């Protein structure tokens, strides 16, 4: 039965995607996407009911499967090389050649490593990623159905390109599930590279020049990540003749041994998670249609990067490599939070904030203690729900008003109330106690007690994040004298948004219990102490606040509003007033983005150089 569940999780999306491609009809496509959502939900719950477990399903463990993985190590880079040659993109050519060379070296020069004891190992971490992919992923794919229809209407396409789009989008879900479950490094690499391919294809989907440039930037950076991953795998194979992940993450194995393979694998994770100085590919990826940004570049694919770091955390605990990784993550958390503050493009704000939170999770992995790692996993799950929600909301609002600039989203609450309020709730869920993101941040801060510098960086990043999200929520709610003119939304749009809202808030509130579930039994007894233990009583307080607030809202929402205080006489014309010098002034509003402090142009290079130095130290520290 377990093998069947795993088969559904990994293979069904691919099959459904191919069916989308062949059958073309929009009705069939909608049915297939909805069916995939249902199938993944069943599969994920089936797997969750058995976890933790190990399994050996044929399609992941047989000789043929391993040969496929071995071949894929050549096929993916070869395809990247081909695309690089067609576009004459030097960096893509360079790094895909390096990947090919590494693959050839592995096959010819190293003895074949024995297959992993069990092809699938499912623990709390894999289950967390699996559930995120299966649920958040399905919601976002459903959201994509009406979104892409509007999107193509807007672009005036003659022939719909949706079948191909949904093939990649759905197949991607299967690859992510495979990545979460596989215990053989070669299978892991197969899925890792497959997600790079999906990301490349989806970023370039719109075929505009900007989309192509961004797609190739994502490709070369992720090819570089692939080089790190492959060389890490080969080195580990050389050192221990092992490709079994669960055997490799045994700290006893690494005492006295060179940590270089671990550092390289962590570095590959940092590239995938777009940590500074590799953040540019994720920002470029924002040109893709919003469901892509929500699914690949926030909820799931970038989580593969932090997933591998968390997977390595037992080995990292207490080592120099771990300490540097903690600094790397904390620094990115701080730096990208600052960059987010200087942005008025809503999708860029979300992108920077995504990178920041991934940095926080990587910092947790660097600490490596069970308390920190479970905080990291809780952050992974809740961030996926919350940020997925925010992306869906911004995408919907963008389609409503035709702009993704925060200044144009001002007062959105009167134009599309449901989406805007969901976005406000999402923004608040990022920063407010007693919800999970804040508590995760709290737990990370206290777990980082070994490194004062990391703690200060986290404190700074935390304050920057609060300001960013309060401003975001405040701008959406901003009062304006516009009569509500709610636009109709498709059920396929509002349903995923509301489902994501429910999971963001629900998971946010369930965080203390998730945390307790993830901790090993020895420390589970004390799991609900300190801040986590306060949460249940804070929930009671929050509920009380909710009830009081809603009562007042009900009373006030009928009240007649006062005229705005503008320090002058309102004049007949709307939005103007008679002010100083007896002149008529036109009222205009705007946020202060303090670009002199947080501007992208000013900060990126400097912070990128610092982050690059940290990454060099990560590898260098492992060599010495």
């Amino acid at each position, binding site marked *: 039965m377990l093998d069947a569940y795993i088969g559904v999780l990994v293979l069904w999306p691919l099959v459904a995607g191919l069916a989308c491609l062949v059958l073309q009809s929009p009705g069939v496509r909608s049915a297939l996407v909805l069916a995939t959502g249902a199938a993944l939900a069943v599969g994920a719950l089936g797997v969750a009911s058995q976890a933790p477990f190990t399994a050996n399903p044929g399609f992941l463990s047989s000789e043929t499967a391993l040969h496929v993985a071995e071949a894929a190590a050549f096929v993916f880079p070869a395809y990247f090389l081909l695309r690089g040659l067609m576009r004459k993109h030097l960096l893509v050519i360079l790094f895909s050649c390096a990947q090919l060379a590494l693959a050839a070296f592995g096959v010819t020069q190293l003895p074949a490593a024995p297959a992993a004891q069990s092809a699938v190992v499912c623990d709390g971490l894999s289950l967390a990623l699996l559930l995120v992919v299966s649920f958040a992923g399905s919601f976002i794919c459903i959201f994509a159905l009406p979104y892409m229809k509007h999107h193509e209407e807007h672009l005036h396409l003659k022939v719909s390109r949706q079948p191909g789009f949904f093939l990649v989008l759905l197949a991607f879900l299967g690859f992510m599930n495979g990545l979460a479950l596989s215990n053989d490094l070669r299978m892991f690499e197969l899925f890792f590279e497959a997600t790079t391919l999906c990301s490349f294809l989806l970023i370039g989907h719109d075929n505009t020049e900007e989309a192509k440039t961004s797609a190739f930037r994502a490709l070369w950076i992720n090819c570089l990540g692939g080089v790190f991953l492959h060389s890490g795998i080969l080195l580990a194979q050389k050192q221990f003749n092992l490709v079994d992940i669960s055997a490799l993450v045994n700290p006893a194995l690494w005492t006295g041994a060179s940590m270089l393979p671990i550092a390289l694998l962590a570095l590959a994770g940092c590239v995938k998670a777009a940590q500074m100085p590799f953040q540019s590919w994720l920002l470029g990826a924002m040109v893709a249609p919003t469901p892509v940004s929500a699914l690949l570049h926030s909820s799931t694919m970038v989580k593969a990067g932090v997933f591998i770091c968390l997977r390595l955390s037992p080995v990292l605990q207490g080592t120099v490599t771990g300490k540097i990784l903690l600094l790397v993550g904390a620094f990115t958390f701080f730096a990208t939070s600052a960059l987010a*503050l200087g942005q008025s493009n809503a999708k860029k704000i979300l992108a920077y904030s995504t990178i920041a939170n991934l940095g926080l999770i990587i910092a947790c992995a660097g600490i490596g203690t069970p308390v920190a790692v479970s905080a990291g996993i809780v952050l992974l799950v809740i961030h996926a729900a919350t940020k997925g929600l925010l992306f869906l909301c911004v995408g919907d609002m963008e389609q409503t008003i035709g702009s993704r600039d925060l200044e144009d989203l001002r007062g959105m609450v009167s134009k599309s109330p449901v989406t805007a309020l969901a976005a406000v709730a999402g923004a*608040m869920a990022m*920063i*407010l*106690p007693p919800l999970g993101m*804040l508590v995760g941040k*709290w737990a990370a*801060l*206290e777990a980082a*007690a070994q490194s*004062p*510098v990391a*703690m*200060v960086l986290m*404190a*700074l990043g*935390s*304050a*920057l994040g*609060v*300001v960013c999200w*309060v*401003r975001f*929520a*405040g701008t959406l*709610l*901003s*009062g*304006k*004298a516009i009569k509500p003119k709610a636009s109709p939304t498709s059920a396929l749009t509002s349903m995923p948004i509301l489902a994501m809202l429910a999971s963001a808030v629900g998971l946010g509130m369930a965080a203390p219990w998730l945390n307790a579930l993830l901790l090993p039994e020895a420390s589970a007894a004390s799991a609900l102490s*300190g*801040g986590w233990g*306060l949460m249940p*009583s*804070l929930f009671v307080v929050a509920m009380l*606040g909710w009830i*009081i*607030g*809603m009562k*007042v*809202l009900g*009373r*006030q*929402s009928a*009240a*007649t*509003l*006062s*005229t*705005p*205080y*503008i*320090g002058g006489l309102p004049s007949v014309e709307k939005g103007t007033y008679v002010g100083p010098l007896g002149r008529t002034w036109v*009222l205009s*509003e705007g*946020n*202060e983005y*303090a670009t*002199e*402090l947080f501007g992208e142009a000013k900060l990126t290079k400097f912070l990128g150089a610092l982050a690059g130095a940290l990454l060099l130290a990560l590898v260098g520290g492992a060599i010495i």
Partner: protein
Amino acid sequence: MNLTTFYLAVAGLILAPLLGGLVAGVDRVVTARLQSRMGPPLLQPFYDVGKLWSKIIAPASHWQGLFVRWALVASLASDVLLAAGADVLMCFFVQAASASFVAVGAFCGSSPYSKLGAQRELFQLLAYEPVFLVAILCMAKVSGGFDAYSFMASQQPLLFKLPLLIPGLLFVVLVKLRKSPFDISASHHMHQEVVRGVYTDYAGRDFALLEIAHWADVVVVLWICSFMWATSALSMVITAGLFLFAALVIDNISARLTWRHMLKVVAPACLILATANLLWLYME
């Protein structure tokens, strides 16, 4: 949670706002004396709130009442957490939530001054939050735990190990009490360039509740400052009193700074001092 904790929590819930109101009264009397005036009676802030409560004024936004209540709940909750000896970092985050609600409520308003004030309020938040957080981390490092009781249980005053925190904590007190030179987001006196900034659009009952929330905030901030010399209850009160008095004196002798100056000069300076102190603790 045992019964003592419960009683302490209830005491915190009731006493903290009252104490905050008294602090506001003392503030007004001392400020008046510094300016050679008689000043209002000590309980004037309570009368003011009572009068505000009796006024029914049309709100500037449908949402403000909601955010005012949430701010009040969060502020009171942070007092209760401290009183019950809970995690001080979490108490800090709850208090920051209250500040966020005030800013969001101001964004919801219709007056441009209110929104301008909200922007500045956020920059203030950005300036003092890291300093305050690092100060708490320093205290936790010295006292060996994050809960309020271990902060108060240390035999030696934390001040001796944390001298560099004083400027930072004073900065936090000035910002949170909305005192010059950092009364940037809600100018203390009306008819200035931001009118009342973040408070412009709050009126009547909402404003009365907001005032109580502010009292609760002030108590949290002064309480955390008083951990610097927490060998006995009396020494804590004196420490908090000294911080308050210093803030009042600075308020009376300085003019308002711009938010740029606060964010570019004052906050980094305070943060660097606090960080230096933290690093120094790790060197020992």
